Structure formats: structure tokens, C-alpha cells
């Protein structure tokens, strides 16, 4: 590690504080429903399943909790035959 990097390094306590602030902001807002993501996943998939057959193994869900914005990314592989039916 260069001297420059050494000086720029954040104290670990500051990193700890920032991580906690972001995490707890989310945990407090979803208090009592710590499985918010799991529920969202279930409900979203249920809605889609009403319209087409999907393979539960071909659903990918990613969550990124940020300071101001969080993103929930749901990636569902839609079978070709279903798409043909819809079309």
C-alpha cells in the first residue's frame, strides 16, 4: 500500500458507523416485516404466474440497499412458448 493510500484510508469506525446508518434505516422502515424481500418476491412471482408458467429456479432476485435509493432487481426467464401465447 502506498503512503498516499494510507493517508486516504477511512478509519474503520467511520466505515462501521456509515454501514450501520444505512442498514438500520432500512431495518426500521421494514420493522416487523424483516422478510420484506422474501414477501415481495413471493407476491411478484404470484402475479406473474397468473399470466404465465414460470420456473421458480429461473428467477433471480438481487437487492442493493443504498443510502438514498435501494434497488430490487427481479430477473425472470420467460419461456418462449408463453411469449408466443401472449403474442
Amino acid at each position: 500500500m502506498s503512503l498516499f493510500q494510507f493517508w486516504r484510508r477511512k478509519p474503520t469506525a467511520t466505515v462501521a458507523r456509515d454501514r450501520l446508518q444505512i442498514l438500520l434505516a432500512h431495518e426500521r422502515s421494514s420493522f416487523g416485516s424483516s422478510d420484506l424481500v422474501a414477501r415481495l418476491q413471493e407476491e411478484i412471482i404470484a402475479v406473474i404466474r397468473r399470466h404465465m408458467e414460470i420456473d421458480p429456479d429461473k428467477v433471480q432476485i438481487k437487492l442493493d440497499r443504498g443510502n438514498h435509493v435501494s434497488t430490487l432487481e427481479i430477473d425472470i426467464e420467460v419461456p418462449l412458448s408463453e411469449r408466443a401465447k401472449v403474442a
Partner: protein
Amino acid sequence: MSKVLVVTSGKGGVGKTTSTAAIGAALAQSGEKVVVVDFDVGLRNLDLVMGAERRVVFDLINVIQGDAKLHQALIRDKRIETLSILPASQTRDKDALTTDGVAKVIAELREKFDWVICDSPAGIERGPAMAMHHADIAIVVTNPEVSSVRDSDRIIGLLDSKTERAMRGERVEKHLLITRYDPARAARGDMLKVEDVLDILSIPLLGIIPESQEVLKASNIGVPVTLNNPETAPARAYQDAVRRLRGETVPMSIPQERRSFVERLFGRRVA
């Protein structure tokens, strides 16, 4: 008017039992009638930290199930006349802690004592829920460390929603007790500062207990740290916390170990 106080934290190993013993002893020394109640059914340790482990005959569960009267289960401290211990059961299951049973015991204790201090087990299940249920005041014990702060935040949420007071639309008076604090490491940026923890948890600060070897020494011999050597840094920190708990205004400080002339001369502690 008696007060029910819960010492809680969510996370284990942060110093709930040590703090219960130290605060209970210091409160009793100031003349208040105090009982410390161990809610850690199956893993009782308050009796050991208080040095009463060989005098346990009956326990909280025996009283709840009607196998013993409350006065039979209470152990009078040998050092302080106004201090008693109600141990937890070591063998029974925590499901034996019934809501009605606990309510009855707490009501009876309220009549006999000025302070009923409930030592909560770790976690957020039945044991901790029962320990906090009747609380008027809560001391949230937190280490300056991410997992402890997160768990404390969760416990604060439960104190605000699941306790009897919360259900009546009242509030549990909450206090933060930061334990195992190392001012030197915090100054170097290697440990969360008191202000950081306060900022995140936003409940009033009751005290800062410095990291100290005295805590282990006291528990080794079964004496609350405030009784073992009242001049040590953690003992003075707990005494300050207790004065604040009793409504006194005590300036917040982090007590340091006092070193004797000889120790200072040699630049280190002489064992």
C-alpha cells in the same frame, strides 16, 4: 413507588449480567431495597456473578409453578442487607415462563422492593420478551461494535411495541449503557465513538463503562464489580450510572484507572 427495570441488549456477551449485578449492588448500597431477577432460564449465571451459586434452593420457575413461595426462592445477599437475588431455573425449559406466572411474581416483587431489576437473556424470543414485558425502565447494554448496535436497535423497537407499557400506549423509559469502551481505540478511529452509537440509537446515555480487567477479576470471585473494588474505573462508571438512574445530574465522563505513585513511577501497573 417501585420500579421494574430490565437490563437487555439483544446480543449476548455484551455485559448484561455484569451490569445487572453492578447496578443492583450499587443501588442497594445507596439504601434502596433491590431484587435482581435472572430470566435466563436454562443458562442462569446471575447467581454465579453475584457469588450466590451455592445458596440456590428454589428459583423463579418454582415460584411460577407454585412449588415454592417467593420468600423461599429469594436469596438475601450476604454483603448488602437490602439486596436479594431471584435465580433462574437451570434445568427447566424457558416455556415454563408463562405470561400470567411472570406477571404475578413481578407484582409480588413490586410490593417488597423499590427496584426489581430483570436480567434479560440474549435474543428476542420468549425469555427476553418476558424479561422486558413489565418494565418501566430499560437499560440497553451496547458494545461499540456493529453487531451489538444493530441488535440494540432491534431491542429498542421491541421495547416500543411489545411491552405492557407500549401496549397501553405509554413509553418505557430507555437508557443506553455503553460497555467495554476503549477511549484510546475510539480516538484512533478503530472503535465506534460514543457519539456515533448515540447518534444511531438515539436514546439517552446512562453511562460509559470502560473496558477493564477489573470486570473479569470481580466475576472470578463472585462479587459485583461495584462492591469488589469501588475505586476502579468500571466501578466508578457504574456508580455514576446509578446516580443518574436515581435522578441525579452527574457530568458524563469515562473514568480512568487510578494509578498509584509507584505504578506511575514505573510507567506500568504493578500486579
